């Protein structure tokens, strides 16, 4: 369960995001919509613990993020939150396998080759384990980014604009992969997007308006 209460994010005295209340059930799928500048990415960053809210609280599976120190928050993020960024940002210097190994290492988990192969097989990348990101198509890279986000079986998966710039077929496939992986992990899924094509697929919707 993800819970947000009276969260406010200010930037130089200006309120850039305000969320009065949000509850995402354990395996719930929530879509966050809004125009550019409405604070979608800011909300994801706050949920990921990489941005501390100016006020209010965020709890993930009972853990209040504001109570965690910097190092503890880093560890918590590594083990409990998986993030798929809009531009993917795979580590180009590493192979697909090593990108996933690095995610395990940074979360403080022991290397688990079986898990890596299982996740990549589930995403149709079993044959591309040793490929470097630039040797893959965009669709394949996105699947690697999803694999990296779920490799540590997180409790919350965050995705920022996962379907923008994708045609309908690829959009449907990307969303399906996200849903499947979230279900397999038993994780809640929060997707920030302005892509209304995927709106009907979610259990819950949060629409953000730009703050005055």
């Amino acid at each position, binding site marked *: 369960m993800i819970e947000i209460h009276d969260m406010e994010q200010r930037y130089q005295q200006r309120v850039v995001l305000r969320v009065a209340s949000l509850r995402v059930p354990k395996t719930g799928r929530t879509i966050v919509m809004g125009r550019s500048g409405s604070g979608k990415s800011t909300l994801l960053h706050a949920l990921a613990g990489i941005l501390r809210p100016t006020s209010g609280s965020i709890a993930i599976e009972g853990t209040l993020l504001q109570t965690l120190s910097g190092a503890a928050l880093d560890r918590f993020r590594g083990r409990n939150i998986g993030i798929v960024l809009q531009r993917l940002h795979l580590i*180009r210097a590493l192979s697909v396998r090593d990108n996933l190994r690095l995610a395990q290492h940074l979360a403080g988990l022991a290397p688990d080759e079986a898990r890596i192969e299982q996740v990549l097989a589930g995403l149709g990348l079993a044959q591309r384990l040793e490929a470097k990101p630039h040797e893959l198509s965009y669709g394949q890279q996105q699947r690697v980014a999803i694999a990296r986000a779920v490799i540590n079986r997180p409790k919350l998966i965050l995705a920022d604009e996962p379907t923008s710039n994708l045609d309908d077929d690829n959009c449907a496939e990307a969303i399906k992969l996200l849903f499947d992986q979230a279900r397999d992990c038993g994780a809640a899924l929060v997707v920030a997007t302005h892509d209304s094509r995927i709106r009907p697929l979610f259990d819950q919707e949060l629409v953000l308006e730009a703050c005055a």
Partner: protein
Amino acid sequence: MNLLQLALAYLRARPLNTLLNIFLLALGVAMIVVLMLFTRQMEERLQRDLRGIDLVVGAKGSPLQLILSSVYHLDIPTGNIPLRDAEELRKHPQIKNAIPLALGDSYHGYRIVGTEHAYPALYGAKLAQGTLWQAPLEATLGAEVVRTSKLKVGDQFTGAHGLGEGGGEHEQTPYKVVGILAPTDSVIDRLVLTGVESVWRVHEHHGDHDEGGAEGEHEDHAAQEEHHANEAHGEPDEEHTSERTEKHADAHAEAHETHAAEGAAEVDRAKAKSENTALPDMTQQREITALPDMTQQREITALLVQYKSSFAAVGLPRFINSKSALQAASPAMESARLYQLVGFGVDTLRAFAGVLIFSAALSVFIALTNALQERRYDLAVLRTLGAGQGSLLRLILTEGILLAVVGALLGLVLGHIGTEVLGRWFEATRHVHITGWTWSPTELWLAAMAIAVGLLASIVPAFVAYRTDIAATLAKE
């Protein structure tokens, strides 16, 4: 996949940049290693060659030249001194031991030194084969001479005029090899040792052959010194050969003119020569004091003196220098002067190597700073995956240290290989053995310094990585 592997992967992903940084650092370290090994071995070698010699007495001229020619056998002698003066000096109460040296000829570039058995004993030389020279024209060879010439005990060879290669040969007076010395790693290894009287005899024969009369080695030296002066000016070979022949002839002619008025002395010298040849017991003598009647005309090149006590250093050199024909030079002082002269060049090269290392540090700094710009999203992603600020700091420091460690190690290896290559060239051209297959504990400090330089160069980029604002970076997507 840990931070070390990640740092390695990042370095491998920029091969040109990485290799350039490593090479720059390695070059600086290698230069310092070469200088360190070279100067250390040269200094040790020079100190070994000075062993037991308190003072060198020779003809007036440059004291450094006297030391270089008589102790290290590198330069041409300042001239000769009368044997009579040398003998008088040997009796001085403050002198414990004095070893005469008579120079003038060489064999394949190795100097033929007329001396006494005390000379090889001074360097603790031991016979590998045969015996030390006993009779005139017997020679005992240094280990390096044998290594390159392949001469064996019982072989004969002829000396050549002058102290370098290319002089006219004394074919009338061949030497016979009677012994070979074991390697001493000192100047003795590259000398051909014989009795002083052998050197005199060779030059008497040479005088007979050329001029039909007895001619002292002084005239030979005049020609040889001119010959070497030409060598030192680096004239082209062809020109050099013809000019040398001309100058040699000129020197002889000039010497003849100078000595034309010394008819009586010439007669005495011829007499002395015939006595020397006629007296078999004298040929057994090693001591030059055994030729009292010849000391009026004979000359030697230098005397290596050992003091009876260190107090002799106070007055003896001054006493000798007050004599009109003699010069006393302190090997310790002249060597210090030599180190000072050579040291300037070494210091300049060392400073240049320091500049190279500084450039490498700067290059590492620039490379890591540029890499930070290229990888700012990577760093942010690492934070989203759970990496702490400290992990990013360690990642960049690890990259800097890896570059420095590899650069330092490569520099050490290149330095040793470079020293060995230079050493072989030095051995071939200067007959001085320098090896790269030795190490100095200072190298550990050098490696540590190089690594510290890498660490320093990466501190600022690492701190920038540490301060990365993930949210701000990702917001710029």
